[in-house]
């Protein structure tokens, strides 16, 4: 409902805006899959949008449309293109085809599509190496677990999530050879009740640390209710469990959004694919808390190592669950191999749902 109201307001604003003013300022548009208030994925993209406004005062004007269903996104994207937006960020995987379609009709508009893999002359793609953060929290969990069992709440079995599970396990195992992880899939990105139930099931089965790749703070909260430890996801979730959170993996799109806006302003924008993480600040870590100093030191050293390129979570040899060694050049897996990961590494029990 709000979505329709916003569209209406947008159309109205575009009609009323003085043309001269519109030409002076660069208009940047955003399409979000969830509400700005999800306190996770869309919330963090909106933080990036605000950073653009702050970085170029008086030079840019930003607009967003929230809760846009993927299947019906073409209309919303075209609405932004038609109303003079010259740079448009579409921030969910399912916006891929609609973005490309609208981009063909508006060759003068630059598009940026998050987490996709199809590009065009005026369509870039970008994503973040969230698995780098997962390797760090894996090490923390490996050190902190007393039962040697860690529960992992997964959303949907796509490569991004599977790569995260693998990186987490490799991190945990590097400091604790006896560690086991149990994975429970929710088959939803956002279903607080079910996410919480999954966390409870994992705790019931002996896990004493919970980590999650879903969007709500429910798993963290359930772990805290049982006096166990957990991690935050997408944004700093410490306020939900101050005494039980270890750290959060934070998505920070702001530097990238500012950089790309500057490129358009200076006329240097070109289509490309950007996949980076801690080094460029797109992935950040929350404060390391509720852990002894040696674990904190280990976490900070690992973070620094990944940032400077000394440590890579997927350093070869990588052995898959079925015992085969993964093909490897340059001593580590390349970006394509990580972005397409569809197998567990050796040591993880259970199978990936098909």
């Amino acid at each position: 409902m709000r979505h329709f109201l916003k569209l209406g307001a947008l159309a109205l604003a575009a009609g009323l805006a003085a043309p001269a003013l519109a030409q002076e300022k660069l208009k940047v548009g955003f399409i979000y899959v969830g509400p700005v208030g999800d306190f996770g994925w869309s919330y963090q993209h909106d933080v990036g949008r605000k950073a653009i406004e702050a970085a170029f005062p008086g030079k840019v004007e930003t607009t967003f449309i929230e809760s846009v269903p993927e299947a019906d996104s073409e209309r919303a994207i075209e609405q932004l293109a038609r109303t003079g937006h010259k740079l448009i960020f579409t921030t969910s995987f399912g916006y891929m085809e609609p973005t490309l379609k609208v981009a063909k009709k508006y060759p003068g508009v630059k598009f940026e599509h998050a987490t996709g893999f199809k590009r065009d002359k005026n369509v870039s793609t970008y994503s973040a190496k969230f698995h780098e953060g997962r390797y760090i929290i894996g090490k923390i969990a490996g050190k902190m677990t007393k039962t040697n069992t860690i529960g992992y709440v997964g959303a949907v079995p796509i490569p991004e999530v599977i790569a995260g599970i693998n990186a987490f396990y490799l991190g945990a195992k590097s400091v604790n050879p006896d560690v086991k992880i149990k994975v429970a899939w929710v088959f939803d990105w956002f279903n607080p009740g079910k996410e919480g139930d999954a966390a409870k099931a994992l705790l019931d089965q002996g896990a004493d640390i919970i980590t999650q790749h879903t969007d709500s703070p429910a798993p963290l909260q359930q772990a805290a209710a049982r006096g166990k430890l957990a991690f935050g996801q997408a944004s700093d979730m410490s306020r939900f469990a101050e005494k039980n959170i270890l750290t959060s993996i934070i998505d920070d799109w702001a530097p990238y959004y500012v950089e790309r806006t500057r490129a358009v302003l200076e006329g240097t924008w070109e289509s490309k694919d950007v996949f980076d993480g801690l080094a460029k600040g797109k992935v950040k870590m929350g404060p390391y808390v509720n852990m002894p100093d040696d674990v904190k030191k280990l976490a900070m050293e690992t973070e620094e190592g990944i940032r400077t390129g000394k440590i890579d979570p997927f350093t070869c040899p990588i052995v898959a669950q079925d015992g085969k060694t993964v093909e490897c050049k340059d001593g580590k897996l390349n970006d394509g191999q990580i972005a397409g990961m569809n197998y567990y590494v050796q040591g993880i029990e259970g199978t990936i749902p098909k």
Partner: protein
Amino acid sequence: MIDTLPLILGTILTAATPLLIAALGEHVTERAGVLNLGVEGMMIVGAASAFAVAVLTDSSVLGIAAGALAGLAVSAVFGVLVVYLAANQVATGLAMTILGLGLSGLIGQNFVGQPRAPIPPIEFPLLKEIPVLGKALFTGDPVFYLSLILIGLVGYGLNSTRFGLLLRAVGENHTSAHALGLPVRRIRFIAVLFGGLLAGLAGAYLSLIYTRFWSPGMSAGRGWIALALVVFAAGHVWRLVLGAYLFGGITVAQLHAQAGAIGLPSQLLSALPYLMTIAVLLLLSISGRRGSGAAGSLGQPFVPER
């Protein structure tokens, strides 16, 4: 395993409680002959209002009451439209769900990301020592016990009171009921309000007990599951209760199967409750006795003749 069993039972009970409460309300509404597809919307408005009021007043009790009343308020709009103005029930119900999802976002806007302390459980001193069942059944949250009272209330009220009889008569055949001089529309309106009250209460359970925060869209389809449960119950309260706990049980069991790396296809287990609902419908229609066990005038608008 013996240690974890009470915990698992507890998880099942909390997962089933919001479904049970919303389904009990919808059961009564449907017995009176009104199909309310707005349960999801009333539930989410209840969740947002409950959380907002609980934070503002720092009282969970007021929060729960506000959630239930918010559900009732939305159902009053629905009731006026479908009962008194004889609007199409399916279309109006769907509109209520869409309205509810939007409205709840507005109500909850300033409460996103705020944490809330848990409501302490009610413990029964001696009973909770009973092995396995004791801890699950006798250290529950207050609304869980309220849901048990509601089961009895709805079961007794519908089957053994005069008002229950009138309500069912109105649902079975509104023309005959009207001819007998029953206030068809007033009874239906009351049934709609009761359904909304319980949908709102179920929403309050979601944001204050099940997961203690507000987030837009957090009902995640539970209103629709409640509607499916009413179909599954085919007119019997005991089957509704069974269905709700079975559904909660299967949801939790499939998560456990995954966590325990038992090789069951979890998607199939997730779909099982819905498959069961379809199977029940099929069995009822094969057995030949009037279709789905739904009230005779279900979904038909009633306009009294003059």
